[in-house]
């Protein structure tokens, strides 16, 4: 069964450093998403991406964050200058074109620890 894959599974970075989280969505999907889950809290929407541009972003997704689809298969989330409060599990998701009984498929997540 096709799946969304995320790398790395765990990343430790120093505060102020840039970090890039990588995702390979399901191949025929056109919509891509990033979600964040701070430890012990709920999963929060960060951003959606379609046709090489952001469709919607949440208040969390400030100027420190950016997303990119650098080639035909990868979807990345970049945090320019990490803060301690960026420590969280980050989930990538993808879905087919909306309009029907579609669902978002989630990756297993990348746990980011900022020290």
């Amino acid at each position, binding site marked *: 069964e096709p799946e969304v894959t995320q790398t790395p599974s765990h990343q430790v970075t120093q505060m102020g450093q840039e970090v890039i989280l990588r995702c390979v969505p399901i191949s025929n999907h056109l919509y891509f*998403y990033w979600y964040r889950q701070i430890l012990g*809290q*709920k999963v929060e929407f960060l951003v*959606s991406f*379609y046709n090489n541009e952001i469709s919607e972003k949440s208040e969390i997704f400030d100027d420190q964050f950016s997303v990119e689809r650098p080639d035909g298969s990868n979807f990345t989330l970049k945090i320019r200058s990490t803060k301690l409060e960026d420590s969280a599990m980050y989930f990538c998701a993808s879905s087919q074109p909306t309009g029907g*009984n579609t669902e*978002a498929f*989630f990756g297993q*997540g990348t746990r980011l620890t900022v020290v």
Partner: protein
Amino acid sequence: AQSVTQPDIHITVSEGASLELRCNYSYGATPYLFWYVQSPGQGLQLLLKYFSGDTLVQGIKGFEAEFKRSQSSFNLRKPSVHWSDAAEYFCAYLYKKTSYDKVIFGPGTSLSVIP
């Protein structure tokens, strides 16, 4: 605004007992609803989903959920809980727009199982 509520933050049940986890949503003439399970430090696993049709939905691991439009609810049930069911459970609502979908998660219910 769209929202998903899970009134119970934490539930403890004895192994073999029945389980019901509550979920209420706001918004949407045609709700698309999901239940996910998350073990500690792990990703999100889809238990079941409701798009339309039969209001009683069967999922994996012996779980089922019932959609009740009149109550805006989508409660998760299991007739006999196993110790391995101890985890965090998230109800989610799929908010559809013309150019993207957005999954809105509830705050989660933590399930503990007493042997």
